[in-house]
């Protein structure tokens, strides 16, 4: 069960990366996440049923990028508020996701259907999920140090400075939203393939899961803006979140408690993060050393 929780933790780390990118780096409260997560799963289940799980992952990336593009278009070209743009895309994509699955709200994969996670090989599934999280995490650390990545970070930090260098801040914001939703959709696609079923309500509540990963992860960054620490923090945050989930299920037997526990966990971790408790402990340890 712990292995299962950790595997899901690595899969949801990708969701955390995506939400971190839009909320923290781009400073864009993007609510598209819940739609792109389901879209990734929907695209993935259709391709898995055709015997093409790898293509399903690839196309889910493009699907997520498209949903991010639409949110950016609504905000930048039509002047719609950031939050409302995300809500409109989220609403529209509920139907789009049903269209992708031919209006089937759920699917269960047969025993013979192949996904990228081998059946009944939990350890292998764990390593595959970990591989995805580490590779994507390493890619993000590298990418955000490239010229394009730095420009995306700067566009969220001070839009004016991007324009001052003769570049369109809209372009970088749009690119960032596409990348963010592509990662979220990939997380949805992996989640579907690991769980071996699809449900059109997969995305519901995913925003809070992603935010939880970030908030929990932030206490490991010691308030530094190091990209590497942030990526590690999100992965750790996601793993801890899934372990908390496992504890709640084990002791209550009721997954419905998780919403309440999520909210309480976020509050607790924010308080810990703001108090700088871990930072003080780390400094004390450095002094003793």
């Amino acid at each position, binding site marked *: 069960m712990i292995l299962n929780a950790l595997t899901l933790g690595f899969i949801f780390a990708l969701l955390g990366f995506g939400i971190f990118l839009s909320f923290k780096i781009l400073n864009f409260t993007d609510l598209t996440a819940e739609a792109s997560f389901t879209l990734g799963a929907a695209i993935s289940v259709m391709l898995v049923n055709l015997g093409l799980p790898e293509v399903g992952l690839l196309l889910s990336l493009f699907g997520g990028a498209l949903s991010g593009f639409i949110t950016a278009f609504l905000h930048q070209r039509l002047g719609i508020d950031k939050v409302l743009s995300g809500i409109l895309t989220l609403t529209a994509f509920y139907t789009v996701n049903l269209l992708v699955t031919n209006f089937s709200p759920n699917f269960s994969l047969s025993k013979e259907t192949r996904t990228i996670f081998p059946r009944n090989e939990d350890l292998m599934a764990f390593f595959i999920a970990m591989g995805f999280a580490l590779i994507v995490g390493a890619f993000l650390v590298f990418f955000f140090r490239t010229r394009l990545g730095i420009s995306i970070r700067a566009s969220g*930090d001070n839009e004016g400075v991007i324009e*001052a*260098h*003769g570049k369109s801040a809209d372009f970088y914001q749009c690119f960032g939203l596409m990348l963010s939703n592509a990662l979220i959709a990939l997380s949805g696609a992996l989640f579907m393939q690991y769980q071996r079923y699809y449900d059109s309500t997969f995305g519901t509540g995913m925003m809070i899961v992603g935010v939880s990963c970030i908030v929990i992860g932030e206490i490991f960054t010691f308030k530094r803006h190091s990209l590497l620490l942030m990526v590690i923090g999100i992965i750790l945050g996601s793993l801890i979140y899934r372990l908390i989930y496992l504890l709640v299920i084990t002791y209550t037997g009721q997954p419905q408690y998780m919403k309440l526990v999520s909210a309480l966990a976020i509050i607790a971790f924010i308080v810990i993060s703001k108090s700088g408790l871990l930072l003080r402990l780390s400094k004390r340890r450095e002094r003793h050393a």
Partner: protein
Amino acid sequence: MLRIKDLSVTFFKGEAMEKNVLQDLNLEIDEGEFLVVLGANGSGKSTLFNAILGYVPYQGDIELDGRNLNKQKPYKRLKDIGIVYQDPLRGSAPHLNVEENLLLALPKGRKRNEYLAFCKNELSSYGLGLEDNFKSEVHNLSGGMRQALSLFLATVKEPSLLLLDEHTAALDPRASEVVMELTDRIIKNNPKMMTLMIIHNLDLALRYGTRLVVFQDGKVSLDVKGDEKKNLTKEGLAKLYEAS
């Protein structure tokens, strides 16, 4: 040359009320000219900058080096215009480090390491220690260092026009002096660049500007240059300023 022809900017306050912030303004600035813009708050100085950058709708024409800017988006105008604001954090991305901010201005085709070495060399000549703080996030630097970095970022692309919007106003007197001397040096190193500087300090205006323009109610009420400017004292300027 910067040519501003019949420039008017109107702000609407509610349905019926409107305010003409700039009214039929005509101004020509030659290559290498350092024009200081003086005037009371609300006289239209900053609105002129915002119109040049395309941040406010306006009537009239703005031409830079023979190109009409009217239909260009702000970011396209800023390819040839550098700007430094009063707030030292506006000229850079505060949560990115100095090196990353410098890389935002990396010219196309130029090698990263060679460009950073050039920046380090240039910044070391500023004497503020910026070259030793490449890995520091900008919000952790002093106001003077932030503004020096803003100046560097605004001018490294060798713009034909530099706009300085009270860029020393938020600094302490010592830092203000250092940044102003630095500004003067950068301008002298770019002899073709036109500079427009908004400032309230008459001493600095007289010391550095090659031409002084006073704004009142959206119009130029005084324009002093050449010998007339050279013979002007602070008291004389203050009298003209008050009378304008």
